[in-house]
């Protein structure tokens, strides 16, 4: 949704970026072999954390890339916020690689630091290959394109089908039913929990808020507006805080040995997660393979059908690259070419952002762990279509860090989640101001 006011802000941001671009371009002309970019062979480096990416890139280097004399070298990195810091540090020295993998929520941070190039002229008709809600994250609401979507993480509800049957529970379609299910289970089996609220996973909470319609970062005029404690997010926080306080769900963090054990032994019988959950469950709960099932995320009202996203990343070209159009060409190929995307699915286990790929050959059979649900990926593709738009800002990392602190304490003490939300809002606004962004109240 191109919001005119937002566009204005980005004009300001874009001109700042353009100034940086100009500076880099000049520097590039002075020091490197820029003139060779168009004719001679081009060598690009690509920072990515995706396992098996070297095999996919080999396809390019043997085929398309060989024809165009564009050679790509993969340099495998560790994922996470620390990679954003590493890219920005390298960018400060004008030594960022040509291509980087970046999570959607990191794009505004990278763009506001002038690290990502606008590749709108070089990606051709890539836009048509993606759902609009996904594509919008790479444009930040402007006419520019800062990345090509690679994988997405539409959220879903996972549950132990056998135990649901045993305790005569039905799969909840609304959050109201979800709460009822949690209570019913607690009554039937007091030592079990439906699930846990993990205060360590800000991405999950952000996805749940996104589903409820929250827009944490928006722009008005040339100012950022932060709405982390808006009514939609408040609703989500109160809902989960209430369940924790009531004692019908657990309050322990996820991704710990104890959590793995709880899933594996059936102490926790459901998990609000995303499309990549089969991979996690394979290592976390190896003994319960084939006993889980996937369903759409519960809704806030019966008439709705939306989901949030948790995870997902894109391929971006940096402003330090001397061969931006070549890099953009590769980024578009990697994430839209049928062979490339099916190799990504096969060798790297990603869930592709490109809509046609979600129903392609690689996704005709369910993941091994879910062999009991043969239509897993058909269902997943349906759910992916309902992903709500997201709104990321330039300091998601600060908001997330604040979430971990404030919600961690609130979940442990079973205290009010609303207050924790206010803390998160204040910390995020304060940091934006400190960074020199204009913030409207």
């Amino acid at each position, binding site marked *: 949704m191109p919001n005119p006011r937002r566009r204005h802000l980005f004009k300001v941001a874009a001109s700042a970026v353009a100034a940086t671009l100009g500076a880099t371009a000049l520097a590039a002309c002075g020091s490197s072999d820029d003139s060779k970019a168009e004719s001679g062979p081009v060598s690009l480096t690509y920072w990515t954390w995706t396992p098996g990416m070297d095999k996919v890139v080999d396809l390019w280097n043997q085929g398309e890339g060989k024809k165009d004399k564009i050679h790509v070298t993969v340099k*495998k990195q560790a994922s996470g916020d620390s990679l954003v810091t*590493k890219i920005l*540090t390298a960018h400060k*020295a004008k*030594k960022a690689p040509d291509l980087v993998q970046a999570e959607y929520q990191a794009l505004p941070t990278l763009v506001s630091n002038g690290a990502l190039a606008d590749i709108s002229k070089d990606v051709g008709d890539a836009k048509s290959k993606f759902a609009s809600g996904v594509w919008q994250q790479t444009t930040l609401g402007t006419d520019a394109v800062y990345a090509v979507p690679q994988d997405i993480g539409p959220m879903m509800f996972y549950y132990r089908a056998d135990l649901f049957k045993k305790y005569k529970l039905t799969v909840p379609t609304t959050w109201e039913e979800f709460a009822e299910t949690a209570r019913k289970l607690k009554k039937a089996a007091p030592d079990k929990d439906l699930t846990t609220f993990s205060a360590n996973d800000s991405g999950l909470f952000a996805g749940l808020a996104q589903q409820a319609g929250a827009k944490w970062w928006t722009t008005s005029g040339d100012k950022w507006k932060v709405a982390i404690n808006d009514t939609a997010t408040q609703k989500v926080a109160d809902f989960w805080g209430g369940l924790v306080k009531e004692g019908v769900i657990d309050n322990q963090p996820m991704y710990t*040995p104890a959590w793995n*054990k709880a899933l*594996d032994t059936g102490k926790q019988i459901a998990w609000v997660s995303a499309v*990549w959950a089969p991979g996690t469950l394979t290592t976390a709960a190896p003994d319960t393979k084939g006993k889980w099932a996937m369903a759409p995320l519960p809704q806030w009202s019966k008439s709705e059908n939306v989901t949030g996203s948790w995870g997902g990343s894109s391929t971006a070209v940096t402003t330090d690259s001397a061969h931006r159009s070549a890099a953009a060409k590769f980024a578009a190929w990697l994430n839209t070419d049928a062979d490339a995307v099916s190799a990504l699915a096969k060798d790297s286990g990603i*869930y592709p952002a490109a809509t046609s790929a979600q129903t392609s050959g690689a996704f005709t059979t369910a993941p091994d762990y879910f062999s009991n649900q043969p239509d897993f990926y058909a269902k997943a593709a349906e759910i992916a279509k309902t992903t709500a738009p997201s709104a990321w800002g330039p300091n998601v990392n600060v908001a997330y860090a604040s979430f971990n602190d404030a919600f961690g304490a609130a979940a442990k003490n079973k205290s009010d989640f609303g207050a924790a939300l206010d803390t998160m809002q204040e910390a995020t606004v304060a940091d934006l101001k400190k960074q020199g962004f204009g913030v409207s109240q």
Partner: protein
Amino acid sequence: MSSLAVREAGPAAGADSGTARAPRPRRRIALVPTLTLVLGAVYTLLPVAWVVIASTKSGHELFSTFTFLPGTGFTQNLKDLGAYRDGIYWRWMGNSALYAGLGALLSTGVSALSGFALATYRFRGRESVFNVLLAGVLMPPVILAVPQYLLLAKANVTDSYLSVLLPQILSPYGVYLARIYAAAAVPGDVVEAARMDGAGEWRIFTRIALPMMIPGMVTVFLFQFVAVWNNFLLPYIMLSNDERFPLTLGLYTLLAQGSNQPALYTLVITGAFLAVIPLIALFLVVQRFWSLDLLSGAVKS
């Protein structure tokens, strides 16, 4: 306190010969310190024990069996670790050995040379140089990593073996230790006498001072070796090609593979276990020099 009194009463009642009485006072004071040390040892060794035991568990057993019950998957874990991306783990191990071994050796050389110079020569600005070094000791290396990266980027040597080795060659703490040690272990008279006999300064250093400083330099080498072996941030910022990664960095990439990938816990744990072995081996081998070091400090007056 009461148990202490009982312990004291025990041997006193049974033993009446003078020779048996001799060790008693030592035992009385040793109880509290011993307990503290045992507690400290448990505190530091428990995580190591966890790593050792967890490395024997298969992915299946890792989270489902009792924490301190050894598993059955050790050889399989080793095989998997060796097979991961064509055995890149062993490359990381080699890189770590290179960074830590060569880095610590060079660093010890520089420390010995500058420590000797600061201890034996009187020159203008000597104290200022030393004070700057002292300030360097107080500076955590972590905050220097980014400036060092920007500097080395100007020199175009980032993402190379050199970029990790160079910043770690000068260790303020090593120079500080070397100076203190040289001042104590190399008597000024000896240096003076060598000069009278016509030895050049380089000869004095290599033939006379250095052998006297060896035990102290072993300490510097050990400190520096451990520091480089465990270093994370500097190589993290400097390197982007994972064929040049040290172990710390390599294991980190195994853990952070993106949200859609299971973390390779068993590989990381087995890898971490193997990564401590060289350190332990090094300590065992060099231990004798180390105790000599402590002794020789006390003998000199």
